[in-house]
């Protein structure tokens, strides 16, 4: 029975956050706590000749200074996260991956690989003294040639970012079905193009932060981190420091946004616990924004060279793509982003011949990790630019080309003929992409827009409309768990491994549990963000929490319900199938007036003072369920951007943005809409404003918010939303993930709209962001070309 699932229940988390009483890492104070500051490399690639810490050590208030030499044999480097990097055997057979080992020492040893890499750490009474001391540390570097271009990096004689990684290619694979080359020979036309997406920084407004508190009496280490993956942090600390994992407790308190990079375990999360253990005192480190922009893991940064064969009616026969991921100095996530790109690239389209070669290349930049969409925005930008280019070459409306190639509803479930990252067959479980497209076209009055466009053109105004679609594998495994118990107050306490960064877990999982248990969301207390609450957990990333933790919550609630009914049956003298639970009242169907509550059941079943219960009923009201999804479930969406372009300035005004999406069952519409609007805002940022820029020496040029531009309320329109409800067939709730979707399509939709607005010029947008200066350059070039042709 769905009573609360589907309702826009107000969030339980809000009270503390609007009163300033939430607890973020920076808010935590412990007795005797010291503060750490990092000295970071100003060089992109250099040998460390000498580090002088003498003066710094003499500064009153300084407790410890560590450099690479101090930790060399004591702290293992961070290596690839196995939980995310493992290539299932059948996938390996299909794509033949070549992998070279790579790693990052938590403090640079002997040489530095990127600007911002930690070189030394200072621990002092407070941050002010620690910063004074950090300023007194002198590091002598001998510059090496920095490698900033991945194509340069792959050349035979190029310097190596990591000595053992030949030609700087950390990983490569080849995915192929059909025969693309043969299709190219038979098709009417061929399109060749290069499409690239820039490097981005996720920029949660809360920077990273770590506190570690070691208790030498019990040998327990408690770490608080602004992380998305407390369990991965725990495992990595154990791996790097050789500690017993169960002696480490990692808590993610209120976390001020994550978006992916807070899921990559960082060197500071290893060093701060190490120092706390060494000094036997609590130690705190809170990142500043300059550190965040230089040192927090970045993302995206792909270049695609595509060859597409198509017929004059718009049918696409084959797509070949050789793409390079610039991973920066280390790749911790294996083929996660690259393979996501490879298996998502065709999206809602049928392209029978498909050939993808991918190389993950190391350069002297900050390491790259997944960020909202994780390889999918890059895939969609490439694919949807291709669709748009084909349409323009054939002088067709892009919608016509989209419809020509789209998977039809009656073809569902649709097998794309390749494998998902988890090794399952890539079969879209449900959805109706043409209907979603039609709904979106109706929503924006597409025909009306075309008329308006013609009218305004006469008045010298350039408006344009652009469409993008995506299909996204959401709810990635491997699992997520829920441990439910009832306490003496009759409340259900649910311990979940998937910790949130603003997604409203305390509310949505209470809604799921309330429906399954016959309670109200207020009867359920959700505990998340702590490795002490549940033995295993994965975390919040990959649009997976509602799917996996939600399903675990649902199944665990049903298990608990079964036990409650069994005991209530004994207490009410009837059979469990004769009992109802409504709003916390447990009663026999024929006698609703005479009811029990969970408090009553708890009293009967607690291990102490046990009245007779049949031996098959174990004492206590506690159940655990781990949900293991069969594979990902496919959410989908159609995005439509309407823009006006000022030809004189290259300025793009985003006039409207509309979306039709399908995430299966909607647990809380208000929260889902919030995720979509927020994701689109980030997508708009990456379409028009955001870019991490390095110069040819590997120096970061975007180290402040004056250079790295985030969109404000002036740039983000209120998105018009339409919904489709094609339930997932791969979990008991029918949900599909929604967290990342919003961010995937805006670059493609907006770029297509800009090209459409300037359709009288031959403009090709293959690079992001479409900043005014970049667009003005393209306009100038196209105008020049046009006037040359006219004058001839």
């Amino acid at each position, binding site marked *: 029975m769905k009573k609360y699932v589907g309702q826009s229940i107000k969030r339980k988390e809000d009270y503390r956050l609007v009163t300033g009483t939430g607890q973020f890492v920076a808010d935590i104070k412990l007795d005797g706590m010291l503060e750490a500051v990092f000295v970071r490399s100003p060089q992109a690639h250099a040998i460390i000749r000498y580090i002088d810490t003498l003066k710094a050590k003499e500064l009153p208030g300084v407790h410890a200074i560590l450099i690479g030499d101090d930790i060399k044999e004591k702290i293992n480097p961070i290596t690839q996260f196995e939980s995310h990097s493992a290539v299932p055997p059948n996938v390996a057979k299909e794509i033949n991956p070549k992998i070279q080992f790579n790693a990052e020492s938590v403090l640079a040893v002997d040489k530095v690989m990127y600007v911002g890499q930690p070189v030394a750490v200072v621990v002092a009474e407070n941050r002010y003294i620690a910063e004074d001391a950090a300023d007194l540390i002198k590091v002598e570097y001998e510059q090496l040639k920095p490698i900033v271009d991945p194509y340069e990096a792959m050349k035979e004689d190029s310097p190596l970012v990591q000595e053992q990684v030949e030609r700087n290619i950390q990983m490569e694979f080849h995915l192929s079905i059909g025969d693309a080359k043969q299709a190219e020979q038979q098709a009417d036309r061929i399109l060749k193009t290069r499409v690239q997406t820039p490097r981005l920084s996720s920029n949660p407004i809360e920077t990273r932060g770590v506190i570690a508190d070691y208790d030498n009496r019990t040998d327990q280490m408690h770490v608080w981190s602004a992380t998305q993956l407390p369990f991965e942090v725990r495992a990595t600390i154990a791996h790097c420091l050789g500690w017993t994992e169960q002696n480490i407790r990692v808590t993610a308190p209120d976390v001020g946004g994550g978006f992916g990079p807070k899921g990559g375990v960082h060197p500071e999360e290893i060093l701060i616990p190490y120092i706390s253990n060494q000094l036997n005192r609590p130690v705190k480190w809170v990142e500043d924004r300059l550190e965040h922009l230089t040192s927090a893991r970045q993302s995206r940064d792909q270049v695609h060279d595509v060859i597409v064969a198509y017929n004059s009616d718009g049918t696409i026969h084959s797509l070949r793509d050789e793409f390079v991921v610039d991973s920066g100095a280390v790749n911790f996530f294996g083929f996660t982003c690259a393979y996501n790109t490879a298996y998502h690239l065709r999206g809602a389209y049928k392209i029978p011949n498909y050939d993808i070669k991918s190389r993950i290349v190391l350069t002297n930049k900050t390491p790259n990790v997944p960020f909202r969409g994780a390889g999918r925005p890059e895939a969609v930008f490439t694919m949807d630019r291709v669709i748009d280019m084909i349409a323009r070459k054939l002088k067709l409306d892009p919608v016509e080309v989209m419809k020509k190639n789209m998977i039809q509803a009656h073809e569902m479930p649709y097998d794309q003929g390749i494998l998902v990252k988890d090794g399952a067959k890539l079969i879209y479980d449900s959805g109706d992409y043409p209907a979603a497209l039609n709904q979106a076209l109706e929503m924006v009055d597409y025909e009306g827009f075309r008329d308006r466009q013609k009218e305004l053109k006469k008045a010298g105004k350039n408006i344009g409309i652009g469409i993008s679609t995506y299909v996204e594998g959401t709810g990635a495994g491997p699992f997520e768990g829920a441990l439910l118990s009832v306490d003496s107050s009759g409340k259900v306490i649910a311990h979940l491994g998937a910790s949130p960064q603003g997604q409203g877990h305390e509310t949505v999982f209470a809604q799921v549990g309330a429906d399954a248990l016959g309670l109200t969301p207020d009867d359920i207390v959700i505990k998340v963000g702590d490795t002490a609450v549940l033995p295993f957990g994965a975390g919040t990333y990959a649009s997976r929490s509602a799917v996996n933790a939600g399903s675990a919550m649902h199944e665990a609630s049903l298990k608990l319900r079964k036990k409650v009914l069994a005991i209530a049956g004994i207490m009410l003298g009837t059979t469990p199938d004769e009992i109802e639970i409504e709003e916390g009242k447990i009663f026999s169907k024929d006698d609703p007036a005479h009811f029990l509550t969970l408090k009553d059941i708890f009293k009967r079943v607690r291990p102490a003072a046990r009245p007779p219960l049949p031996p098959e009923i174990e004492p206590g009201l506690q159940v655990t369920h781990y949900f293991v999804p069969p594979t990902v479930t496919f959410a989908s969406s159609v995005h439509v951007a309407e823009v006006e372009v000022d030809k004189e300035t290259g300025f793009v005004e985003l006039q409207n943005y509309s979306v039709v999406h399908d995430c299966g069952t909607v647990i809380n519409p208000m929260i889902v809409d919030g995720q979509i609007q927020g994701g689109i805002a980030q997508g708009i940022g990456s379409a028009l404003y955001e870019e991490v820029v390095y110069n040819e020496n590997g120096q970061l040029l975007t180290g*402040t918010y004056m250079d790295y531009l985030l969109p404000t309320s002036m740039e983000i329109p209120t998105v018009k939303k339409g919904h489709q409800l094609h339930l997932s067939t791969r979990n008991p709730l029918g949900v599909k993930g929604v967290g990342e979707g919003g961010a995937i399509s805006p670059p493609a939709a907006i770029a297509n709209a800009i090209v459409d607005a300037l359709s009288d010029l031959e403009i090709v947008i293959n690079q992001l962001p479409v900043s005014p200066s970049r667009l003005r350059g393209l306009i100038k070039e196209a105008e020049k070309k046009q006037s040359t042709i006219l004058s001839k």
Partner: protein
Amino acid sequence: MSNKVQVGISINGKKVQKQVESRLLLTDFIRDECNLTGTHLGCEHGVCGACTILLDNEPVRGCLMFAVQADGCEIQTVESLNHVDGTLNVLQQSFSDNHALQCGFCTPGFLMTLTHFLKDNQNPTENEIREAISGNLCRCTGYANIIKAVQQASQILQKENSNCSVVSAQ
């Protein structure tokens, strides 16, 4: 750097006297010396607005000031907004009603900016709201629900004020 200076600042109606280093940031004073951690630090260079407080009733970036510069001033932080009995004020309630926050880290800054804005402008247009919050960055919500929340709050405040004026006219 041990030269300490005496500062006296009224925070949320309570006078605080402390000996502090002259280089102590106002935000660190509020957070560490006064234990009011609702004022958040997002960028420490005056762009994100998470540390916005009211200083003598004007919204300012706490991260761009030293504590000594606020000597003798009156400061209001997010902790001053809810009623004494703990219930939320109109703006806070509107934020919750309209899902105008996700991670909530930027929220205190928005609330303080808007507390000042709604005093001056009881009936703002959408564009005026957008402009008012354009100095506060939010990375989660995409701003739309924040705008909705301000619209709801302004309507309630208008109604409350018109009721008050009716009462006073009688």
